[in-house]
């Protein structure tokens, strides 16, 4: 187990380093610099370049950036003068995190229950309906769901607020459209997993020794079936985060995803780099946690050590 965790940790660090370096190089490979405005006098442009350290050789800039990064300093936004990237992440991220957590919770709870029930009523009408929902949920892009919901429930029927963040009603549509993919993925996997577990010998043993069905379902079926499902949580978190870019835009939520997209529009290099690195670090840590957690939850891995 310890070996597995160290290996994954090393891998995560290398990935993060690659992302930081690639982002840095990409931003500097862009033609021109942020001060190419022709109205800018040459002297001022030179001063700006010096102020932001763009006159130094590339490797030196890289060293400075890395050093700042190690101190948790992501630099100033180029578009919004006087604001640091750290500030903007601190402003925006709580909204994004709130939305993301809601979407994940909704997705996991709903998906696991749908999948379990579908497996229990295998081949019945509930199973078929649940699987139709799952296929649709996997197939329809989140921004389509979001816009259609917004049009139907907010613009036409006017039962939910169209945009904004704060009240419970305002959180319903964004969390739903962001979490639907999680529901769908979880439901499909959970169904397959439960069907697999139900056929195992130890379930027959549990029933044969006279456990009541509630005991069998909770302690033996669901506990075993949910294990492999946990592993997809990592990729799903990635999906939630990237999905939030567009969901925040559709519902006007002042989160970090909106900043990120705007930064890309505005060529705000430092902000793009900062948010990319922040997001990447967040996702790498999240996936690492899911993997390690999985190792701890599953005794077969915890005791045997390593997983290959």
């Amino acid at each position: 187990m310890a070996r597995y965790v160290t290996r994954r940790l090393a891998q995560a660090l290398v990935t993060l380093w690659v992302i930081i370096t690639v982002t840095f190089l990409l931003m500097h490979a862009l033609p021109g610099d942020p001060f190419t405005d022709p109205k800018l006098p040459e002297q001022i442009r030179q001063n700006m370049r010096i102020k932001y350290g763009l006159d130094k050789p590339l490797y030196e800039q890289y060293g400075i950036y890395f050093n700042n990064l190690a101190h948790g300093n992501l630099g100033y936004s180029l578009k919004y003068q006087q604001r640091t990237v750290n500030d903007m992440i601190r402003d925006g991220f709580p909204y994004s995190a709130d939305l993301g957590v809601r979407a994940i919770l909704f997705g996991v709870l709903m998906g696991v229950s749908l999948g379990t029930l579908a497996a229990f009523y295998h081949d019945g009408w509930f199973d078929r309906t649940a699987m139709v929902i799952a296929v649709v949920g996997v197939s329809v892009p989140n921004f389509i769901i979001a816009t259609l919901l917004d049009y139907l429930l907010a613009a036409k029927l006017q039962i939910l607020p169209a945009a904004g963040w704060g009240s419970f009603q305002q959180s319903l549509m964004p969390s739903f459209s962001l979490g639907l993919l999680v529901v769908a993925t979880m439901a499909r996997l959970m169904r397959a997993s439960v069907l697999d577990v139900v056929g195992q010998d130890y379930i027959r043993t549990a029933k044969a020794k006279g456990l009541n069905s509630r005991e069998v379902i909770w302690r033996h079926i669901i506990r075993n079936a949910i294990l492999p499902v946990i592993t997809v949580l990592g990729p799903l978190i990635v999906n939630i985060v990237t999905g939030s870019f567009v969901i925040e835009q559709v519902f006007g939520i002042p989160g970090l995803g909106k900043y990120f997209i705007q930064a890309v529009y505005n060529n705000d290099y430092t902000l793009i780099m900062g948010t990319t690195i922040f997001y990447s670090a967040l996702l790498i840590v999240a996936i690492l946690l899911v993997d390690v957690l999985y190792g701890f939850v599953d005794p077969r891995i915890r005791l045997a050590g390593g997983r290959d």
Partner: protein
Amino acid sequence: MAAPEINRELFQPVQFDREQAETISRPALTYWQDAWIRLKRNKTAMAGMLVLVVIIIAAMVFPARASFLPQWWPGNLYVYSDQNLQEISRPPGGLHWIGTDDLGRDLWVRLWTGARLSLTIGISAALVDLLIGIVYGGISGYLGGAVDDVMMRIIEVLFGIPYLIMVILLSLIFRPTSANLFSAVMPLLLALTILGWIGVARLVRGQVLQLKNQEFVLAAQVLGADTWRIVAKHLLPNVIGPIIVWVTLDIPSVIFSEAFLSFVGLGVPMPFASWGTLAANGYQFMRIWPWFIIFPSIAIALTMLSFNLFGDGLRDALDPRMRK
């Protein structure tokens, strides 16, 4: 009560005919015939396939100019970029089958021109991914040892990079210019494929690793087959099933990524139409002119759904373990 008496007379030897034992009771089917039969039995997969065929044909014919067809044929009346400022934001009906947009462009023609773009990007990106993936995974799996080790470490590192974030960054570097369609699409294709091949590389590597030590490969080696023949005749046919499934499921995810990028404004530039740009434009005017958004949404959702249903069915059909 006495037990029934068991004696020799109650039994009779089974007739065993050597000739009959050798006869083949059902026709021999190749892998593909067998898969096709199972696919045909799967109604949802066939429905998905049918819808895809219809969409592809529609994308080919509707925007096309066809002089032998009557005047009202959409392709004869409009081009996707034609603006008619007299007919701005017309609702569906008349000569504009699903209305016009805010610049007076016919939406039906734009929708199917967009289909051409989205489908082309989806299919070509999936094929490029496939090509890189097969080469990378094939080399890694076939050579094994230290080479495999290094190549897999690289993949593990790349795998941790969030795909869409990187695509967004890359689309910034290769920002499409609107000069012509080719230079508008190529950067996007590059951004979408630069990390997209990882999945198929892992798949191919795993399959090759599993297959190369099996007896039939050894037998071929003993019989004097060279590496090329082993790869082409023995390894590839065995991995082709999962690869085809992977491609059918990769196409909708590329279409999604393209639509996503275009929706946030980083995809193909404006005069060109893709389903993502149409949806983005529709979203802007959703409250006043809802038909802008509805048709591209249906098109994207239906295409992705059909690809997924077809891919799922194909996976079941091509899996030899499902054979009865």
